[in-house]
Structure formats: structure tokens, C-alpha cells
């Protein structure tokens, strides 16, 4: 069955097609949810919510652009909605002078995907959201500012802080491993 046939089957509310679509893309969408959530149960809630929305809005997909990209946008929106419900505060950071820890590529490359996901999920909510939107989803700071109703400068500072924290954590893990 081609992707088009699968999508058309889902539009007709064919349960078998919906199940096939779920099994094909659930893993990648789960990765996105794990990046945005602070723990697995929250990520599962996000994934459930996202797929409900995907199935109810699949008739709006006009076969223009990547279907995976369309699904990812829905998952990211659901994740943002869930985080915003938690009333996450984005605090403007004025101190950018603290030195960024130096991480070598060897230390980073040794990390597995699950470890990287865990590192991201351990970030505070605001840092995590901005890091994901900028680094993983490719949004600009202006776009992030509009989505999260913050200033672009706040978005930049959150990203800087997120990188510092991640690098610090990677170094710490490297020291423990040694």
C-alpha cells in the first residue's frame, strides 16, 4: 500500500489504515514528544493527543509537501500546548558572560540517542522548548518569539543557556564514565 492509499484510507476512517499509519510513524513522533516532555508519561500523553489530532485533521492534508513534515508540525504544536498548560515561564537572562564549557566531539559522539534525549528532557521547560524549536525544528528566534509569545532576545538567551547546560551535563557524564 502506498502512502497516498494509506492516507486516503485514514480519511475514510479505515481503522486498519490508521493502525498502519500509527505503526509506521509512531516511533519518530515519540522521539519528538520525548524531546519536549520532561518524562515518559508526559511524552505518552503528548503522543496520544497528537495522533488523535492527526486522524481528525488528516482530511486537511492536500498531498503538498512531506506528510511526515505535516505530522511533525502537529506533534510539535500538541507538545507546545501541553507545555503551555503547565504555565512555563520564560525568564530573560541578562548574564551571557559565563564561559561555555568546552566539550570535545569525542565526548559528545559517544552518547547514544536515548542519552541525548534524556539530556534534553532534563533541561528546564523554557530552555528545552527553545532548544528543540531552534536546533531540531529549525525555527528562527523571531518565529519562536511569536509562537511562545516572548521576545526574540529571550529566545536567544534561553538557547544560549540551554547549550551551556547541555555541554556541562555532557562533561559531567564524561567524568563519571572515566
Amino acid at each position: 500500500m502506498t502512502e497516498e492509499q494509506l492516507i486516503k484510507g485514514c480519511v475514510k476512517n479505515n481503522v486498519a489504515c490508521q493502525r498502519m499509519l500509527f505503526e509506521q510513524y509512531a516511533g519518530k513522533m515519540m522521539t519528538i514528544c520525548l524531546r519536549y516532555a520532561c518524562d515518559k508519561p508526559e511524552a505518552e500523553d503528548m503522543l496520544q493527543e497528537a495522533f488523535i489530532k492527526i486522524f481528525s485533521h488528516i482530511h486537511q492534508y492536500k498531498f503538498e509537501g512531506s506528510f511526515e513534515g505535516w505530522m511533525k508540525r502537529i506533534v510539535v504544536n500538541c507538545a507546545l500546548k501541553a507545555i503551555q498548560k503547565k504555565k512555563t515561564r520564560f525568564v530573560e537572562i541578562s548574564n551571557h558572560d559565563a564561559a561555555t564549557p568546552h566539550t570535545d566531539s569525542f565526548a559528545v559522539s559517544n552518547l547514544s540517542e536515548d542519552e541525548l534525549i534524556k539530556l534534553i528532557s532534563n533541561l528546564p521547560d523554557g530552555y528545552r522548548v527553545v532548544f528543540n524549536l531552534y536546533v531540531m525544528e529549525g525555527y528562527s528566534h523571531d518565529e519562536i518569539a511569536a509562537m511562545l509569545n516572548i521576545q526574540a532576545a529571550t529566545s536567544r538567551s534561553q538557547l544560549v543557556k540551554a547549550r551551556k547546560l547541555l555541554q556541562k551535563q555532557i562533561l559531567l557524564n564524561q567524568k563519571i564514565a572515566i
Partner: protein
Amino acid sequence: MTENQFDEFFRKKLGDYSSPVPEDMWRRIKQRKDKERRTLLILLLLLLMVGGTTSYFIFERRAASQKENTALSQKQTNPSTNNSTQNKNQKQTIATQDSTTSSQENKISSLNNETEKSSEPGLNKNNNSKTNESKSTKISNSVIKNNVAKTNREKNLISKNSTDEMNKTGREPIEQNLEQPKNNQANEVTKQNEVAKPGEQVIAEQNNQNNLSSKDSSQKKLQNNAASKEIIIKTHSPIIKNLFVEVYASPDIPVNKISSNNADYLRHKDSTSQMKLSYTFGVRIGAALGEHFTVKTGFQYSDINEKFNYLNKNATRTVPVVITRTLTNSSGETMMLLDTSNLIQAGKDYKLSYNHYKSIDIPILIGYETNGERLKAAFNTGIILNIKTSYKGEILDASLNAADINSYNIYKNNTGVSLYFGLGVSTKLNDNFRLFTEPYVRYRLNSMTGTRQSFSQKINVGGLSLGLRYNF
């Protein structure tokens, strides 16, 4: 490693990575979809029922008003059957009267001819004429008497018609015009009694006929006038006609207001609580005071829903571990050793539950309604007295742990008085039923928590009532 390299590394590693998905995830998604479909069906059914009931009442009202209009138009063009038969009788009497008068006329004219014939020769003629005159006078008198008797009979018929009409349609008896022809007739009769000459007899007869015909037309006029003036008399008793009963239901949006001296607790409580769509339904009995004011009271049931999600990052779990070892000694005997220990696992504990704040209240409201037969605006205000409130679910206790909502007597069983403000519109479905909708606000005056608690909580509600009023 530069920032760009750092970002690129994350993108490459995690861009296409598929994480393991829980096995029951598809089942959860399917269950949720089925639940949403069921909810949608129920809402559609409810909408159909409300729409069908409303349409039924509207069409019934239109049909009833159309029936009234056709009945009215029929009455105006063709008065009631009783009246028509009575009119027939009257016409018959008039016709017979006409025929008798015409026969009398013939007699008089024949008498006159005889008088004329006999008037030519001498005294005999005079005598004859005199006798003829006396005869004719007698005849005219008898004719007049007959006419008077028949006129009286007709008067009785007319008065009978008018009383019948009044009883049927509640019309006021219109007797004024009846008096006039009566008087006219009486005057005519007296005139006729005074002067009895053949020529005048004919004129009198003609006048009688004219009176009869004019009486007939005036009678018809009366009936038309009476038909056009419809006076509807209500038969309800003065007390019960002011009463009404209402049933209503409302989806509610609750707004949680929490205050505490402990900022940390407040922050955690805020993040664990999320108000959800709630509902209220009830029944009220009311009375109209004058044209505009109303008072209402009754019973209502409310259910406020709240989502509680709690994460304990320092949760521990104790798992008993039993290790079985088999030992063989030098003599070949085997021994089994059981080594029992407890393994303490540290991790995160995530809880999700739905809390319910259920209350039974008595609303006491006064209202002001605008004038209007079909559409009315109303403003209602008053108090809502809480009878009992019960709770179900979990909340965050003072030590930031999830606890049963009924533990530590945190919440009161009676939350006191709330203020009610509502502004709505109602539309008439028929003479007894009105459909109303009323957005409202319910504001709590007292906290729902006890005085010794670390936080104070009030849940205010905004809703949209939809209901049906029955007027007695």
C-alpha cells in the same frame, strides 16, 4: 566544538531516530477516538431533540393561530349556525308578516274599491262608506294589532339572538341599537293607533315594512360589530396564573482562585491543577410580581471538574528480591538457601486523576423582564445557598505530596453563599411554554477550604443556561 557543530550533531543523531512506543499506545488512542465519537453522537442527539421539540412547539403555535384566524374570518362572513337559523326564523316571520300585510293590503284595497264604488249613489253610499269606513277602520286596527304582535315577537327573537351571541363569544350585549328600532316601532304603532285611514294604513304598512327591513339590516350590523369586537375572558384564578416552573441545564467554565502565604506551595498547586468543563442542571419555581418582576427558587446540582497531574521526582519504590541458592556439601547433601532482600528503586512517580466538586444548592433569585409577547430580555440576580458539597479525587497536600481530597478535612461540606448574576433572553413557543437562554456568573463569597488550611480556594463559575419555562 562550535555551537553550529554542537547543534548539527544533535540534529543528525535525533532527526530520524525512532524511540520505542508503549505497546498499549494504539489501544489508548483507539479508546479515546471511540469516546470522542460517542460524545459527538450524544451531543447531536441532544441537539436534534431540542431542535425537534422547539420546532414542534413553534409549528403547533402557528397552526393554532392559523385556526383562530380562519375561524374569525368565517364568523365575519357567515355568522354562527344558531344565529343563521334564528335569522332564518326571523326572516320567515318577516316574510309571513310581509305576506299577511300584503294580503291585508289587498283586502284594504278591495275595501277601498268597494268604498269608491259605493261612494257614488247618495246617502246609502254615505252610509255604506261610513260602514265601509268603520269596517276598514276595524280592519286597519286589527291589522295594526297583528303587526304590533308580530313586531313584539320579532323583538323577542332579536333579544334572544343577542343573548345567545353573548353567551357564545363573551360579547357584551349591545342593546343600544335595539332600543332605537323598538322605540321607533312603538312610535309608529301609536301613530297608527291614533290615525286610521286607508291611505295612511298603506303608508303605515309600508312604514312597518321599512322598519322591519331596517331592523333586519341593523340586526345584521349588530352581529357584524359584535363579531369584529372579540373580547376574550380568561378563566384562570388570579394566584395560579402568575406561577411558572423552569427546568434548565448549563455547561460551565470554572475559574479557580487560590491564595496562600506559602509561595512554593502555590506554585506547585498551580502547576498540578487544571479546571475542566463542568455542568449544572436544576429546576426552579417562580412567580411573576406585576408586569416585570419575578422571584424564583428551586434546586440545582453542579459538578465542577478538575484535572490533577502530579509528578514526584524523588519517588522510591521498594521491590523485594528473593535469591535462591542451592549448596552441596562434601557429603553430597544439597541445601537450599533463600536470601531475601529489599531493593529500593528511585525514580519519578507520575499521577493523573480527575477531581469532582459536586454540590447541591438552592437558588433564590429576583428578576426583571422586559415587555414583549414573543421575545423578552431578563436580568436575574440573587444568591445561591449551598446545601451540601462533596469531593472526589486527589490534591497536593502541604508537604507537596498527592493526597486524597477528603483527607485532613481540607474542604468544607457546606461552602455557604454565592452571588448570581445572569442576563438572558426568552422566546415564546406557545401560550404556556417559553424557551430561554441565560449566560450567568456565579461568584463565591466564602472559601471552600477550612480556616486552618494552608491555602484558601474559591471556584467561581461562568455558564450558559438553556431551559424551558412552563407558565400555569
